[in-house]
């Protein structure tokens, strides 16, 4: 039962990643693109956790933690660059 739920969950998050990618390509404004990239990192975190689940390896939690850190920092620095023209003032 868990196996089928895992397959469903991995499929829906992968489909979500594709939808986000569509928004990155189409997004009429830069803020839409940043938002779609941020959502992509969150979906990638979910996929990594599910992959660790399926493969039974605890190392994927560290990878997911790193993804969360780097995704947050990159989103904030991109917004900061657009707002102030500089990242660290």
């Amino acid at each position, binding site marked *: *039962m*868990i*196996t*089928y*739920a*895992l397959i*469903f*969950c*991995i*499929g*829906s*998050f992968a*489909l*979500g*990643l594709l*939808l*986000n990618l*569509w*928004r990155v390509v189409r997004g009429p*404004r*830069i*803020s*839409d693109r*940043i*938002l*779609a990239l*941020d*959502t992509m990192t*969150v*979906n990638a*975190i*979910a996929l990594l*956790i*599910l992959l*660790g*689940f*399926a*493969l*039974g390896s*605890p190392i994927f*939690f*560290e990878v*997911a*933690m790193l993804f*969360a*850190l780097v995704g*947050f920092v990159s*989103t*904030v620095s991109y*917004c*900061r660059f*657009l*707002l*102030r*023209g*500089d990242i660290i003032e």
Partner: protein
Amino acid sequence: MPIADLPLWAEIAVTFFLVVGGLFGLVGSFGLLKLPDPMTRLHAPTKATTLGVGGVLIASMIYIFAAEGRVSMHELLITLFLVITSPITALFIAKVHIHMREKPETLPEPRDASGWASFTADGPARGVRDRQPVEPGAPDKTA
């Protein structure tokens, strides 16, 4: 896939949270694609994706507790980090949108007369602020 055999309650709980998490993640990403303008688009993924990842993490915690008998702390760390950072990200993206695409006239009127705080700071609203050389000892205007 090396999925361990679990007692029935754990199996049902893990399956439930996995399905709910997957559905919420998909709804968040679909809302990002479907909603009409940037401020409503901001609403869909920042809430629903956090719920989706939260469901997956709860499922993982229950699975590890039932299969190995220990409480895993990694999930709590990731949840804590996502819950702390997602409002900051949403605020920054909204600010980028407001400063690049809107003026104070095009925004709805705030309830009190103080105006939109994002536009009341002195200096130009978008792009690089002019960095004037400051006399030593003079009060810092940009702070």
